[in-house]
């Protein structure tokens, strides 16, 4: 892979599109624009770590790839107690969190785009229908699945199931659940010059074989190869600048030496993940935008969603060795439907998960000690596990705000992430724990452990798209309602969280947005 810039742009070049962030949204958008001949400056806060740099030591990998700049938390969610300075486990590296993702590639279900209409008015929730529907995204889902070589689409065979999958499958069958090795953006065969999965078991630590799709090993080198895209690494954007007409003019960023730089731009697209994106807009407040850029509606940072999550770990008499092979090796989709007969709106997926011994010790029972804790670790090689991931309710009190009392290494106020579970989230989690436990009991489990949520990897909704400007931050193309040449290009756009892992949708939306920006630029509308 070649990560050399074929071309560089002058800081005063006001014809470029600046894309902030090189993950699922930003990396895909940058390539989508560059392929159209549009000049792109891609700014990534992290450094370049290519696949041969990746580690199998889980802590070392965590330190290499994670966003570890300070953040704070508040609210009654358990993460705030267990990991007060780590609300989210997301990445600061070229490729963003696509280096870390499990590669589970699911489409949002049609009814989930109409959550407010379908679920009704839930007290304490700020549900809203998306301004786009399933049909708007369907062609881009098609393209994204082809692009990512998603298994079980386009005649691409499924991945062979590992032991963790076999346990899930056995229990699922007894309960009458459907279960297979899922729709994964991991090559089950050699394709696109990327090899097939070696079942190494380190999807979360960066895929050394390159079988797992990431913007690091596809979109970014392709964008650079066009000669239309320049990537600048260790470029931490501090502020988006604008002129008196309210159009954005560029971005100020700290370069790798901590020097402030300014890059002019015709269009700015923000894809910093759903914590950094609103933080940047809030940190870009000015006299013209006193509450933050594009925040006239007051929705920037609000409706933070992180999915209803939890895990079930189960010990068996016989060894399982869950760490061998793909992390999300099997999925049960049956509970992803909306059926309020279960006592909650929306649904959830059950997906296998596996942690190595080091991370299992940290995450299975955070803060735990004594024999209750060590009993589970003693069973480590006999454990199977699943992650429960479902739709959580948007709330205007669940939000990302600036914490002016805590500053990062550049002196910028850090993000505070506040979250309280909605009753619907709690009811769903309890149901999911029950069903997950039943799956493992049916497979013969001798012990069952309900494991609390890990720091969030699915951060969503903090600049949500809305039909009406007063209900959100951006429109159905991610264009902010207030600033025509400012786009939101990551999961912050999600109006509701849906049950599915969000990455495929972020990619499909970025492909659609790239086309839209290209058309609008050609028409000189932006």
């Amino acid at each position, binding site marked *: 892979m070649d990560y050399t810039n074929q071309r560089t742009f002058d800081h005063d070049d006001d014809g470029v599109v600046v894309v902030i962030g090189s993950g699922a949204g930003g990396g895909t958008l940058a390539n989508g624009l560059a392929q159209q001949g549009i000049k792109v400056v891609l700014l990534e806060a992290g450094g370049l770590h290519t696949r041969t740099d990746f580690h199998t030591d889980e802590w070392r990998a965590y330190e290499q790839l994670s966003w570890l700049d300070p953040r704070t938390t508040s609210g009654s969610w358990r993460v705030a107690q267990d990991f007060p300075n780590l609300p989210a486990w997301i990445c600061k590296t070229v490729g963003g969190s696509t280096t870390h993702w499990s590669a589970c590639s699911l489409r949002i279900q049609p009814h989930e785009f109409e959550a407010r209409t379908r679920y009704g008015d839930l007290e304490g929730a700020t549900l809203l229908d998306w301004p786009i529907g399933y049909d708007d995204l369907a062609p881009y889902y098609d393209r994204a699945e082809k692009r990512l070589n998603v298994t079980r689409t386009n005649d691409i065979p499924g991945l062979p199931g590992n032991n963790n999958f076999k346990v899930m499958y056995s229990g699922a069958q007894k309960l009458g659940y459907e279960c297979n090795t899922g729709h994964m953006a991991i090559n089950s065969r050699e394709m696109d010059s990327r090899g097939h999965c070696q079942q190494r078991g380190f999807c979360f630590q960066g895929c050394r074989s390159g079988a797992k799709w990431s913007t690091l090993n596809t979109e970014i080198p392709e964008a650079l190869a066009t000669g239309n895209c320049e990537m600048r690494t260790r470029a931490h954007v501090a502020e988006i600048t604008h002129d008196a007409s309210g159009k954005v003019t560029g971005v100020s960023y700290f370069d790798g030496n901590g020097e402030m730089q300014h890059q002019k731009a015709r269009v700015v697209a923000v894809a910093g993940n759903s914590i950094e994106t609103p933080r940047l807009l809030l940190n870009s407040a000015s006299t013209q935008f006193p509450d933050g850029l594009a925040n006239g509606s007051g929705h920037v940072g609000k409706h933070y969603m992180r999915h209803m999550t939890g895990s079930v770990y189960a010990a068996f008499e016989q060894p399982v060795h869950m760490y061998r092979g793909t992390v999300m090796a099997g999925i049960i989709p049956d509970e992803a439907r909306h059926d309020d007969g279960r006592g909650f709106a929306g649904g959830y997926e059950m997906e296998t998960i596996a942690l190595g*011994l080091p991370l299992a*010790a940290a995450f299975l029972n955070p803060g735990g000690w004594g024999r209750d804790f060590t009993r589970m670790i003693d069973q480590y090689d006999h454990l199977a596990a699943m992650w429960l991931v479902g739709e959580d309710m948007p709330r205007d009190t669940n939000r990302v705000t600036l914490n002016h009392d805590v500053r990062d290494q550049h002196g910028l106020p850090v993000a505070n992430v506040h979250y309280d579970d909605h009753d619907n989230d709690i009811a769903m989690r309890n149901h999911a724990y029950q069903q997950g436990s039943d799956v493992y009991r049916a497979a013969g489990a001798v012990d069952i452990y309900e494991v609390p949520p890990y720091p969030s990897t699915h951060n969503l909704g903090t600049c949500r798209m809305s039909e009406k400007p007063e209900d959100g931050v951006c429109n159905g193309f991610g264009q902010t309602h207030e600033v025509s040449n400012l786009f939101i290009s990551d999961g912050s756009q999600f109006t509701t969280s849906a049950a599915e892992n969000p990455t495929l949708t972020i990619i499909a939306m970025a492909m659609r947005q790239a086309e839209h920006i290209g058309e609008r630029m050609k028409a000189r509308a932006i």
Partner: protein
Amino acid sequence: MTHPSLSRRVFLEASGGTLVGTLAFANGAIAMLAPSTSWAVTTEQFDDHQARTLLIFTRHLLPHDTLEDAVYALVVKDLDRQAADPQVRQQLTNGIATLDRQAGGEWLALNEDDRQAQVEAISGSPFFKTVHGSAIVALYNNPLAFAHFGYGGGVDDSGYLHRGFSDITWLPEPPIAASGTIPVDSTPA
């Protein structure tokens, strides 16, 4: 700030200690890995008594009856590294002194139940949290622990595809339609 090694030379000349032991489980997974049954870990910031106290305290925090002291000694080693910071050193040595004071002599001389009661009494204290924070990482992130708990960790880049990723035989084999086949171009390493 004074360079830690310099301050140690000047002020802590008499400090430093050694933990020594013999593997307790001659047929255990760790013994298979170890070049010898005797082991020794040296500390720079703690004397023998302090190091031993931290080791036994960690055994109370994270009790694995058949896990060798040699692995717990790695936690002491990690704490020793952290204690190069004088504040951490003070917190830990004070914590040890408090345990001894409350034991009316040496905490280590108490029987196991009495030691456990004291650990429970200080759970959540800064001393407890420092030891726990170190232990939860250092105890489980080393090849000896991997061998003991049956974690294969990272093999080479050929992965587990031909090293037992789907070797369970105690459950029925799922149908190919739900799973998938091994890639045909792939050969065992």
